[in-house]
């Protein structure tokens, strides 16, 4: 077979960007600043607790004790919140991606779906929460509904944007093989929009955490939000601080996990660092 080989000998390969060390480097750079800020907050709380009553400014030690109690005895409340968050995020990701694809691939339906999504983004989260209380009796359904209607538009609009930004050259290349619509979706659009799904998840995960807590506060008797409501009713500000601290750590950790997963799934992308 070698007799008709293309003879061009070119073996140079540009260096591969390694993902691991970059992540580690960013973490190291940010870690010092983060630790300094945390130390300053603890110090400020400690100083404030010397001058204000503990129901306004609890000392850090009391907050730590409350946090320990929550982690050891209220883990089921934490688990419920995490489950609600995960299920709602997964559902919103699925439905939002489907709506984004519908908008991107079906021009006739696009204006209707887009209008629906845009109207949804204009409705305040609080309105959805109150509507959910009227419409549904079951707290789980209420929370699921609230989370879904709030999160779906983020995915739908970002995925739609992703499809719109698909380079025309790639589409022409793919169409030169005369694929059907399913093949265009499978080989071109789905792999292209994965990056958009990840960036949406990174952007909304903090917002989603806040929303699930808010929804639990309004619409449920179990979960971290409900526990925070209970702490407020009991003038237990140390517990509120402890839950808040937990949520901050949870948010940072979940962002880190998504970023890690994103790095792995999108490993084909070259590392670019702006000096």
């Amino acid at each position, binding site marked *: 077979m070698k007799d008709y080989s*293309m003879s*061009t000998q070119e073996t140079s390969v540009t260096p591969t960007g390694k993902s691991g060390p970059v992540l580690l480097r960013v973490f190291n750079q940010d870690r010092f600043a983060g630790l300094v800020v945390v130390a300053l907050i603890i110090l400020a709380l400690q100083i404030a607790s010397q001058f204000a009553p503990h129901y306004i400014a609890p000392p850090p030690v009391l907050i730590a004790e409350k946090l320990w109690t929550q982690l050891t005895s209220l883990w089921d409340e934490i688990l419920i919140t995490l489950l609600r968050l995960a299920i709602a995020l997964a559902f919103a990701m699925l439905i939002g991606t489907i709506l984004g694809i519908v908008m991107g691939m079906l021009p006739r339906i696009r204006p209707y779906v887009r209008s629906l999504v845009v109207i949804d983004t204009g409705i305040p989260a609080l309105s959805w929460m109150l509507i959910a209380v009227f419409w549904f009796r079951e707290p789980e359904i209420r929370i699921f509904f609230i989370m879904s209607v709030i999160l779906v538009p983020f995915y739908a609009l970002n995925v739609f944007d992703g499809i719109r930004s698909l380079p025309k050259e790639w589409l*022409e290349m*793919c169409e030169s093989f005369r694929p059907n619509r399913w093949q265009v979706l499978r*080989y071109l659009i789905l792999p292209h929009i994965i990056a958009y799904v990840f960036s949406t998840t990174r952007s909304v995960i903090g917002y989603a955490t806040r929303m699930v807590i808010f929804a639990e506060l309004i619409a449920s008797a179990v979960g971290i939000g409900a526990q925070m409501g209970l702490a407020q009713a009991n003038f237990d500000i140390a517990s509120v601080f402890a839950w808040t601290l937990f949520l901050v750590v949870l948010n940072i950790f979940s962002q880190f996990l998504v970023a890690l997963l994103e790095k792995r799934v999108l490993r084909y992308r070259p590392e670019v660092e702006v000096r």
Partner: protein
Amino acid sequence: MSPQSNAAIQNGEEPAILLDSINKSFGSVVAIENLSFHVNKGEIVSFLGRTGAGKSTALNLIMGNFGPTKGRVRVMGMDPNKDFKKLRQTISVGFQTDRLLPWRTTVENVELGLLILREPKAQAREKALEWLDRVNLTAAANLYPHELSGGMRQRASLARALAIDPEILLLDECFSQLDHVTSQTLRADVSEVIRKYNKTCLFITHRIDDAIEMADRILVLGAPARLLLEESPTEEDRTDRDKFRILHDKIAAALGVDA
């Protein structure tokens, strides 16, 4: 009235590509005006024209991406626009830019067309690896496009176009982004593969040298796309420096007349 292609249709058999009195307008802009030519099976025809001469419009008509405003386009006897799906595996395109998908490795990019043609996965991989071997990219099979040099990317792109074993290969200035040496070597290699497998090739370029070196027939287009000159370079034209220069100047003059 622009001249019509006067090359004979081989043995009276249906040409691989036929454009008959084609007009194509986009709104008030006329891209192609009364263009007629054909490409016989197994022939390499080069399309030469300045930027904006409507070469890409003609290519899109042949690919079936849209139909003509007036006239008749036939590819292997079929209307490429109306019979779009029927021409699966008949036409393949080597583009100006490599258009490799960044999330697919080199071998996955090469097998893309085969997978779209519903070739079983294992068979598609085997064929893709064979083509990577032919273009000397075996070592880069599992690298992503951003890890390849420009020449390697373009070779992978050509391997992708050839892997589906098309009857007609359309090359749209696919060597123009490469440096002279790489371009020359790759062009010779592709030309060899096309002749070895008796493929039909329509090669769009704006480089006169490329056209003379590669084509059996050269069609020079003016703007809007209409035939200005048709030449059939001989082996002597390619090897004899003086003859090469004479042909080169003749084509350049034709292009200059249009300027």
